[in-house]
């Protein structure tokens, strides 16, 4: 089985993003970046399927500027076999990303496509669903467990109020939730070996798909802080205050 994993290069999850002074966007110049954590979980799951002998080849795909190669190298160092960078400058939106990914998937013909459930920068949570729609295949979103079963993949999903089990015919798209697995730590020799693994570069504009953005960012702002609160000295005082606020009977 061949698996394609889509990975996005994003601002590191430990960084609190700062808004540019003119409010035009978030400042990312000079900010530490890395693989989207949910995508890293997707890569890890692909590796585990390979280690179980279910998957034969894992291809990591990213879309963006040249620095997205750092995230592809991360996936290669984790154990992906090869990588594809679709070079594109400027803003990208989920539908355009899904169309570009489809172009690679049409060529590679994988049985399973894995992605993170959302990217931690734009928090849109659309790409996996859109890709599944364009491919005409089933979608297993927010996966907390994946089991291959003949021509089907069973996906345990995290849903409101509990979990749900769905079975999808292969090929299928599955998006990883937080508790699917814990990604491995990359050892230095693997990092070195990853540099020898191939990264193929494609040019987005040559893939014959429309990925022009339709959403324009008008401004960004930090959320307004709540009005300052007060410290109370005892449970009795707290209960009294909450009764005055009429949130306690």
């Amino acid at each position, binding site marked *: 089985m061949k698996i394609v994993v889509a990975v996005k290069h994003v601002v590191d999850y430990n960084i*609190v*993003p700062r*808004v540019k002074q003119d409010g035009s966007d*978030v400042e990312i110049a000079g900010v530490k970046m890395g693989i989207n954590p949910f995508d890293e979980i997707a890569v890890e799951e692909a590796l585990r399927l390979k280690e179980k002998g279910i998957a034969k080849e894992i291809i990591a795909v990213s879309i963006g500027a040249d620095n997205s190669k750092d995230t592809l190298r991360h996936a290669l160092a984790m154990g992906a076999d090869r990588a594809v960078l679709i070079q594109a400058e400027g803003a990208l*939106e*989920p*539908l*355009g990303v899904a169309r570009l990914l489809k172009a690679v998937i049409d060529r590679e013909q994988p049985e399973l496509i894995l992605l993170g459930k*959302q990217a*931690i*920068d*734009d*928090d*849109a*949570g659309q790409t996996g*669903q*859109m890709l*599944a*729609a364009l491919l005409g295949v*089933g*979608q*297993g*979103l*927010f996966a907390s467990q994946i089991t291959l079963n003949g021509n089907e993949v069973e996906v345990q999903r*995290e*849903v*409101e*109020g*509990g*979990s749900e*089990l*769905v*079975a*999808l*015919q292969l090929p299928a798209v599955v998006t990883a939730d*937080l508790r699917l697995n814990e990604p491995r730590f990359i050892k230095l020799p693997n990092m070195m070996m990853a540099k020898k693994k191939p990264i193929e570069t494609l040019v987005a504009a040559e893939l014959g798909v429309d990925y022009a953005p*339709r*959403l*324009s*960012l*008008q401004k*960004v*702002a*930090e*959320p307004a*802080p*709540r*009005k300052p*609160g*007060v*410290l*109370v000295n005892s*449970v009795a005082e*707290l*209960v009294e*205050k*909450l009764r005055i*606020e009429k*949130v*306690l009977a």
Partner: protein
Amino acid sequence: MSVLILAEHDGHHIKQSTRQLVTAAGAWQQDVHLLLVGGDLSAVVDEAAAIAGVSRVLRVEAPHLTHVLAEDVAAALLQNAAGYSVILAAHSTLGKGALPRTAALLGVGMVSDVVSIQAPDTYVRPTYAGNVLATVKNAHALQVVSVRTTAFTPAANAGVAEIVSAAVPAPFGKARWVSEHKTVSERPELATASVVISGGRSLGEQFNPLLDPVAKKLNAAIGATRACVDAGFAPNDLQVGQTGTVVAPDLYIAIGISGAMQHLAGIKDSKVIVAINHDPDAPIFKHADYGLVADLFQAVPALDAALAAG
């Protein structure tokens, strides 16, 4: 032109999030139609038709829609989308699954998780785990938008909308529902409860023994932090925050919660936030309306006793 809303129900009642979507839809000042999908809608169509501001209820009913798959819901939306200028859904399990799929099938982009509608094509939405609020303008003629419903008040009942049977798409066929495991709880639903009491990892094995009695007295839903869930002290579906359930109750009580950004992003629309923590430097105190620096294992039983005393 009109607005089409993907309504949500549990087979017995329309979810409050649908009423909140109707309020959000008011921003377009157009007719508002609800699309109901299910195996048996007889118990919920009248309730849907009674929501103030709704002029038509589209009934998409078929046996294969009992345990509904996002693939089939997207097909139902697609089949009934003609003539609408706006398609709305909640940013919920169902909406997150069905709406991007619908948008891609329609060949348009969409805007996720909006908290404010500034103009018929301009929205405010949280990004970077709630650290940033982005204002975005959508150039597509058809606006496809998922809504953070807690940011809108629920529409009340009034009038009667017409109920019509709508086209039922053929089953998708390449996906099937197998089973579900829903947490059985006497507590109200986390996303819509008017009181929520949440615990952090420091509660440890005392998570339930400590929170249950208070939750019962307040008729509160119980929530947890990501760290608490990861440590195995609370089940996944209790996680409150940007990547879990977003809540906006009248009263949010944070017990032993330090206040990570992704958690705060999921509670900031609460009316009153109370924090009880032993650490006076915990970031949660900067966001709480009332803070109490105290040992949890004494303060929570004391709170329980005070509530029992009335």
